[in-house]
């Protein structure tokens, strides 16, 4: 592949990663997913940097990406601590709970109604009844943690 072709391709992929990450950052409400999305944007940038570095025959791109990696690591450490902290306060990972930056006397952000769970009821295996029907354990009937 020609060098310039390589550069062009990488730039486009970098842009795509950046864009996808952006979508995630802007629209997902789970703080952790947002973090992932942000990292993804960094990846997009890193790709572009490396491609430019190679194209221009310069170590700068590589160096910068290494630094980005370092910063990302720090960022992850701090962020995870913060997320843990925030989660302890409210019991969820919803970013929309934290919206204290608004002007005084403004109405609070009201979430739209939670849609019904389209997972509906858990589907239990239908077996031929044999013996006594097992008593439904309240804990087991709960749907929690069937999907992690």
């Amino acid at each position: 592949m020609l060098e310039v072709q390589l550069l062009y391709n990488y730039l486009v992929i970098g842009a795509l990663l950046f864009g996808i990450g952006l979508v995630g950052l802007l629209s997902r409400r789970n703080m952790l997913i947002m973090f992932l999305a942000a990292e993804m944007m960094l990846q997009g940038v890193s790709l572009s940097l490396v491609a430019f570095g190679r194209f221009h025959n310069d170590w700068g791109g590589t160096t910068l990406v290494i630094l980005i990696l370092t910063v990302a690591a720090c960022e992850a450490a701090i962020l995870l601590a913060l997320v843990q902290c925030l989660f302890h306060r409210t019991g969820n990972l919803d970013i929309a709970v934290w919206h204290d930056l608004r002007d005084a006397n403004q109405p609070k952000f009201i979430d739209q109604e939670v849609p019904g769970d389209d997972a509906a009821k858990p589907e239990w295996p239908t077996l031929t009844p044999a013996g006594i029907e097992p008593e439904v354990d309240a804990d087991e009937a709960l749907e929690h943690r069937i999907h992690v």
Partner: protein
Amino acid sequence: MSAAALLATTLITPQWPYALAALLFAAGMWLLLPRGAARGRRLGAGVCLAGLALLTLLVHCGMVVACGEESCDVKWLPALSTSLGLGEDFVFLTLAAVTVASAIASVTFRKPVYCAIWFALCLMGVAGLFLYQGAQFLGVATIVVYAGAILVTILFVLMLATPEGHAYYDRLSWEAPLSSVLAGVLVGLLTITTASALTTPPTGDKPAAPAWLAAKTTDAYHAERSKNILNDNHLAGIGRELFSKHLIAVEVAGTLLLVALVGAVAIAQSIGPTASATKRDS
């Protein structure tokens, strides 16, 4: 003029195909994002794919214009035709497809753990792309640092912090249409910019590559490159670069890591009895 060149001139010169691709991509992203309902996700995937495919085509055509018909005739058709022979284009295309697809998946899946795992795959793709670029160290470092350390920590946190049942906020998106469209617009703008940077406006019937580009594509320059950034002692090169020119930056980065460590500990320590704790107790 070959068919590809014809295609290229018809597609590249006006910019609306880019817009169309970006729009398709945006629409697909929107459909893919969690919206409280699962309907339309497949359609979204399809649309998104269509958009990306169009984009790929456009990128290729852009290359045709930038590098001239010769490169096209030599590289383009054989690349596809010999794809089953694991040509280097095929490797690149696969890596790119994996990266982009897993990236899309990682931001659109509803369940955070899946997202994390898709993200891991995305990182793999990126690492592969790094390797493909000849940046071995970065490829390995990405896997070690991101996939190995960061992602695992995230998974830890997810395990610790995911509430009971389906979290409602994972089934809702914030301003999904607007953000998708914005991202699409950005991608479109970036590609158009790149494309237009690589070609000068058409004079006569054929756009020409700019002069600076030509300078960077000479064989001499390539030889220079293989002595420097693409040399065999890649790691030695990085080390020399890092510890000579960027010594201070490296030191600062090291300090930063330490500070972050201390900071994370301090923040984590400050967690006290909370609402969630009481909520869980009740």
